[in-house]
């Protein structure tokens, strides 16, 4: 098995039949001595089938794929930002840069905060927020990040790593641009091949369409042409 980098992903076969047909993309959640762990949210057909698999069922997995997060330099203070299931993608990054990360983790409500427990040992500071205030700070993770950036001490240069819904990433990108902070975001697009061959998963960047599966899924936020 190839050693994965935080931010990379895998394509999982979800059925032996022809429907669903395509593989599904899931980020590396954690690398463990036994192998890899993925974390996924039940969304539609494919993820429902995965949930119902018996332990021990063998399925075909392609990966690790994509580029992964660039690691922060020693001078940089990593802000690791997750919205909802976005935690799956940034978790292993926070783990790797152990204890250096300022982690911001938001969800709509407490029930949708996954693996909050497992986060314990890996952050320098942790801000949890929920839209409805059911856990942590009431408000969005974007608000929390904005607060933090506004009040930062100026010693370290923050660098942002974010994964979450597109609107959240767009707002984070704005904050980063406005404050001269580098930001890296993990993007999602519907995929067929996962290896750069079909040109199906493109995202618009300032230098043309780029493939999320190959040039991404991690992009410099400043490169992306965000859709309104």
């Amino acid at each position: 098995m190839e050693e994965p980098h935080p931010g990379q992903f895998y394509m999982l076969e979800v059925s032996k039949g022809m429907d669903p047909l395509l593989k599904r993309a899931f980020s590396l959640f954690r690398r463990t001595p036994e192998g890899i762990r993925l974390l996924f949210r039940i969304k539609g057909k494919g993820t429902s089938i995965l949930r119902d698999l018996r332990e021990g069922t063998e399925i075909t997995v392609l990966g690790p794929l994509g580029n992964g997060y660039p690691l922060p330099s020693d001078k940089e203070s990593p802000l690791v930002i997750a919205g909802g299931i976005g935690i799956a993608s940034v978790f292993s990054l926070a783990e790797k840069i152990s204890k250096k990360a300022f982690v911001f983790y938001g969800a709509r409500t407490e029930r949708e905060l996954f693996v909050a427990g497992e986060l314990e040992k890996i952050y320098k500071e942790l801000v949890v927020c929920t839209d409805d205030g059911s856990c942590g700070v009431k408000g969005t993770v974007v608000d929390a990040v904005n607060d933090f950036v506004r009040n930062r001490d100026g010693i370290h240069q923050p660098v942002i790593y974010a994964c979450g819904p597109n609107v959240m990433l767009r707002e984070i990108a704005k904050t980063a641009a406005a404050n001269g902070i580098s930001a890296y975001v993990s993007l999602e697009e519907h995929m067929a091949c996962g290896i750069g061959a079909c040109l199906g998963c493109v995202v618009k960047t300032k230098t043309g369409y780029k493939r999320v599966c190959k040039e991404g899924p991690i992009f410099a936020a400043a490169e992306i042409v965000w859709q309104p």
Partner: protein
Amino acid sequence: MNLEVNIGGLKLKNPVMTASGTFGYGEEYAEFVDLNRLGAVVVKGLSLKPKEGNPPPRLVETASGMLNAIGLQNIGIERFIGEKLPFLRRFDTAVIVNFFGDSVDEYAEAAERLSATEGIHGLEMNISCPNKQAGWCIFGTDPKVTMRVVGAVRKKTALPLIVKLSPNVTDISLMARVAMEAGADAVSLINTITGMAIDIKTRRPRLANITGGLSGPAVKPIAVRMVYEVYRSLKIPIIGMGGIMNAGDAIEFLIAGASAVAVGTANFVNPRATTEIIDGIIDYMEKEGIGDIGSITGTVHAG
């Protein structure tokens, strides 16, 4: 056991090729597949000038199939020749370049440029543009225009010329006949079938381009029928494709009348699909005592 086939002058070591647009420029799959084993690599469709393609979303999954509206994004013929072809030339595998144009002149010029290039073994001209929003592309649906564009390309190339037909027509045999009369050495069928999907929450098409091309196992029965129809009515070699997922599917196309097959969407589901299909064909030949793969073409016991 003989796996070699001859497609209108193009000699392939076996009848399994890749379908254009599903195998990139070959290098994307080199990690999974020994390219030397393939009958041919057919590259993503090229045009004279690079093309940006359509905005995303470009893909949507459907029942046993997928719609794509890539919009023929490609790096252009010059960059292909400079950056991608040298890699492909390292392999002992036929390289077939799929290409298209926006006008008869562009088609002809592209064919001329490609024919002047070393290391290209055949041309496949794509006359169906299912991703065009404007309904459809007349190159592949109006016999008169088909005749003109194929004729123009034929004048510019001495390479084996494959015309890739659109399935979005009333009479596929007529289109194949026109292509043949205009000088095609072989026909490929089928390209994708125009389709559409709508998100009922947002009431938006699921593809930014509104419509896209349907491929995958869902279309296989239609593709097999078209191969059978063309084989029955014409003497032109056929490259069959549309939903081939395994060796059994590939053999089905051969029996229906194809001399070779191309594997498309299956590459996405299983990046090793092409070579597994070759292995499966060899197995079948052994079990059924078939000495020459060419001997099963068109052997369906029908009527």
